[in-house]
């Protein structure tokens, strides 16, 4: 096997099969944004600190900037575009973000939604502390954490 600078990747993104020839150095986040034009996944720091690029890989939250797109071969990726139903109906979590004003500028929101989606899948009724711990790796610079925690708890049916 010889190393290659360009490779073919086939994966599933938001339920759809996708195949592309891409450079090895392309991150998963750049692949989603530039190759697939799924620009809901945001890039802030590009070194794993801000959490804006968080997507789900086979259901688990990962940093889109700290993974190569070629490493997602054969895997299923879910981005923020994959949350709402095709008719635009929001998930309970998205609806709760809207209801609680859990966003101001919206830059961190896709990462927050994906991280919280993964949390609720594993822990359907988290405590406020568990929610805070889960989103501790997602930075919001509008200081909207209080409403974000309230929204996640509301979506989970847990009183804040």
């Amino acid at each position, binding site marked *: 096997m010889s*190393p290659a600078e360009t490779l073919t990747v086939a994966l599933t993104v938001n339920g759809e099969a996708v195949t592309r020839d891409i450079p*090895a150095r392309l991150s998963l986040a750049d692949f989603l944004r530039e190759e697939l034009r799924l620009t809901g996944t945001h890039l802030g720091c590009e070194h794993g600190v801000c959490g804006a690029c968080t997507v789900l890989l086979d259901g688990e939250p*990962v940093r889109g900037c700290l993974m190569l797109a070629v*490493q997602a071969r054969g895997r299923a990726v879910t981005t923020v575009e994959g949350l709402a139903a095709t008719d635009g109906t929001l998930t309970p979590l998205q609806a709760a973000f809207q209801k609680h004003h859990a966003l101001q500028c919206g830059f961190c929101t896709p990462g927050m939604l994906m991280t919280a989606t993964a949390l609720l899948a594993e822990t359907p009724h988290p405590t406020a502390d568990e929610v805070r711990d889960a989103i501790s790796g997602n930075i919001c610079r509008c200081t909207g954490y209080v409403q974000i925690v309230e929204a996640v708890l509301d979506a989970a049916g847990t009183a804040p």
Partner: protein
Amino acid sequence: MKAPPFAYAAPSTIAEALALLAAHEDAKVLAGGQSLMPALNLRLAAPSVLVDINGIAELSEVSLTPTELRLGALVRHKRIGTDAAIAGAVPLLGLACPHIAHGPIRSRGTIGGSLSHADPAAEWPAVCLAADAVMEIRGPAGPRHVPAEAFSLGVFTTALRPGELLAAIRFPVARGRAGFAEVARRHGDFAMVGAAVTVELGPDGRCADARVVLFGASDRPIRRRAAEERLRGQAPGAALLREAASLAAEGLDPPSDLHASAEYRRRVAPVMVRRALADALSLPEARLAA
């Protein structure tokens, strides 16, 4: 920024990975990528070839016998933190795991990657030293085993030779108690200072054996043998723990950096040791200062 160009290969066996490392002198091994990818994106590293070991199934294996826990190098932090059998065999692993970064990092990051990267403030190298782990290394000259203390050699420096790969980590199943404490600017950040301890109590309730390890306090995790010696043969109590903690901090020459001064680290190191020992020995009153 974006990673510089490189060629990529994803071997499916250790033999293939070793052949790739032998053929490409400046190749880098890509495990979980949670340290290497930032280094690439920041252009701190620019290898010509990346050898992605994520497709090598045997590196993700976990095996447990009555005496030994063996973790493949590619076992991810998340699994270590959530698999009750792993924490049951070596409790220190379970205690340290929640301190490592955040959920999405723990989904990808691996124990072997953290050990090979050798950040002096990382949790796993300290845990391996305190838990008496042995590194299983594969390389062109065949397999070899290196105890944790001989594996971490300095900042980002290990006993791994060019062309070698960390394949697994072997832990003796713990017979005693464990404690872990660290202080970081924000939860999930690398520790400014931390302590990992193990204590075995004899049938008489006295400390039969102890290991006291500090991390973030030197260029690598370090055993504090004077503190261990002080504990041996003694009945646990708040005064003893305070004395052992003071001994652990004696002669420390910690680094100063953006996150903390050397003076601060010297001041906090014995507090971390005291808290870790207090937790290990279920002596909550010993957590408090005298």
